[in-house]
C-alpha cells in the first residue's frame, strides 16, 4: 500500500527533528572525517532588549581563513512570529540548523495547534545543538543566539516584572548549554568589542530608531577590531541585518533605513562627534 507510511500515521512526537531522524536521517547535516579545507565561517551577532521587546543584529561577512567568502550572508533569521535566531560559526551548518529549527517550531505549532513557549523553543534549540556534538568536536561548531517575546510574562533570572510580555535573550554553547542573558549579549569572533559598546550604550526602554543606532555602533566597533566581521558597506549598499520583535510580531528593519543610519553614524564619527 502506498500513501502515508506507518510512521506518519502512528507517530506521537511533535518534533520535526525526531521525524527526520527516523525517516530520513540522510537529510540532516552530518559529515564524517575532518574537513579538508576551511569551510566559511560567520561572525558577530548581537541582541538586546528594547522598550517593545528585543532587537537582534548581525554583520554580513563570512570568511574562510583570510579569504572573504561572502559579503552578503544573512546570519539573523526569523524563527517564528515572536522570535529571532542569529548564528555564528561554520556557515553551511549554521544555515541548515536555522532552517531545521524554523521547521521544528512550525511543525510543533501545526501538530499541537498552539505555539511552543519561548523557554520551550530555547530548550529545543539546545537539544538540537547537543545532537550535533560530533560535528562540534570535528571543529565545525555552531553557536546560536536566540531572542524573543515571552507571552507568559515570566522574565527568567531577572525576577517578576509587572508587564505582560517581556523580551528575553538566550545564548548557547556547542555542547548544548543554554544560558539566559540579562539585557544584552553578543556572540562570534567580534563579540568582545561589540559587548563593550553595548555595555557603554545600552539603557532601559530604547525605541527602535535608537536601538538601530546602538546596534550599528557595536557592529562598527566589532568590525574595527575583528577581521572576520564586516562593517556597514556604504559603497556597495550592504547593511547589517537587523530584526526586531515587538507586540506586532517579528519585523526586519528595511535595508535603506539601516544604511541611512549607518551613513549618519559614519559622518558623525568623521567629525569626531557622538551620533545623533
Amino acid at each position, binding site marked *: 500500500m502506498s500513501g502515508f507510511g506507518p510512521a*506518519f500515521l502512528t507517530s506521537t512526537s511533535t518534533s520535526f527533528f525526531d521525524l527526520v531522524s527516523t525517516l530520513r536521517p540522510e537529510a540532516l547535516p552530518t559529515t564524517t572525517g575532518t574537513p579538508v579545507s576551511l569551510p566559511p565561517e560567520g561572525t558577530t551577532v548581537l541582541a538586546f532588549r528594547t522598550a517593545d521587546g528585543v532587537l537582534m543584529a548581525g554583520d554580513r561577512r563570512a570568511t574562510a581563513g583570510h579569504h572573504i567568502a561572502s559579503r552578503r550572508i544573512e546570519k539573523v533569521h526569523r524563527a517564528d512570529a515572536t522570535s529571532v535566531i542569529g548564528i555564528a560559526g561554520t556557515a553551511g551548518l549554521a544555515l541548515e540548523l536555522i532552517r531545521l529549527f524554523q521547521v521544528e517550531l512550525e511543525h510543533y505549532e501545526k501538530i499541537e495547534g498552539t505555539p511552543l513557549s519561548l523557554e520551550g523553543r530555547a530548550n529545543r534549540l539546545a537539544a538540537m545543538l547537543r545532537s550535533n556534538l560530533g560535528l562540534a568536536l570535528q571543529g565545525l561548531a555552531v553557536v546560536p543566539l536566540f531572542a524573543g517575546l515571552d507571552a507568559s510574562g515570566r522574565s527568567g533570572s531577572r525576577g517578576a516584572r509587572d508587564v505582560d510580555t517581556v523580551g528575553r535573550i538566550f545564548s548557547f554553547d556547542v555542547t548544548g548549554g543554554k544560558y539566559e542573558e540579562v539585557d544584552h549579549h553578543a556572540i562570534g569572533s567580534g563579540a568582545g568589542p561589540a559587548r563593550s559598546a553595548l555595555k557603554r550604550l545600552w539603557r532601559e526602554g530604547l525605541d527602535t530608531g535608537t536601538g538601530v543606532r546602538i546596534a550599528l555602533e557595536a557592529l562598527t566597533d566589532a568590525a574595527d577590531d575583528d577581521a572576520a566581521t564586516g562593517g556597514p558597506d556604504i559603497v556597495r549598499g550592504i547593511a547589517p541585518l537587523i530584526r526586531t520583535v515587538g507586540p506586532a510580531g517579528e519585523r526586519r528593519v528595511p535595508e535603506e533605513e539601516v544604511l541611512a543610519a549607518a551613513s549618519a553614524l559614519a559622518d558623525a564619527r568623521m567629525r569626531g562627534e557622538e551620533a545623533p
Partner: protein
Amino acid sequence: MSMPFYVSPEQLMKDRAEFARKGIARGRPVLVLSCADGILLLAENPSSSLHKIAEIYDRIGFAAVGKYNEFEGLRQAGVRYADLRGYSYDRGDVSARGLANAYAQTLAGVFTTEQKPFEVDLVVAELGTGPADDRLFRISFDGSVSHEVGHVALGAGAEAIAKRLADVDFSALGLADAQQTGREAMGLAADTGVEAALLDRSSDFHRTFRRLEGDA
C-alpha cells in the same frame, strides 16, 4: 473445521460503504469555498479547541467531517508529510495534489483491508494566485478523489448546501460577503458555534492560513 460464510465482494464493499456513509452523515457540515480574498473554510463546530479545519502547509488547508480521532490522525500525517517534503526539497514543492494522492491511497487501503473503514470525508484546499487557480480536492472514505470548482460541502446536508450555492459566483465576493453567504447556505443560526479560517491571498508571509476569531 468450520468454513466461514461466503460473502460476495460486492456485498462486502456495499456494507462497508453504507457503514461509513452513516457515520459521516451524522457529522455537522463543513464548507470550503474559494473567494476573491482567499479560500474560506467554515465548519459548524460547538468546540473551540477540537478543530475540524486546520493548516497543513503554506498554502494548503484541511477540513474534515466524521470521527474526530480518525481525521485528527490523518491531519497530523498530512502535516508530517508536507513538512518533510518541504524540508527535503523546497517549500514550493509541496502541492495539494500530492497530498490528496497520499490521503486517497491511505483511505483506499484502510477501506479494503482493515476491519472497519475510516468514517471520514476530507477536503484538501490549495490557494492559487487567483480564485481560478485555487484547487479544492475532496477525498471520500473509500479513497475516491474529486476535483471541485468554487466550493465543496461535506457532512450532514452537504448536497442541499451545494445546491443552494450552485448559482453563486464566489470569485467576485470579498471575505465578509463570502462568509455571510456561506453561513446562510449552511443554514446556521446566529448563535451557532462556527469555526472559520482563511487561506489569505494577501498574506505577507509564506504561511497564509489564519483563523478568523470573534465574528464567527
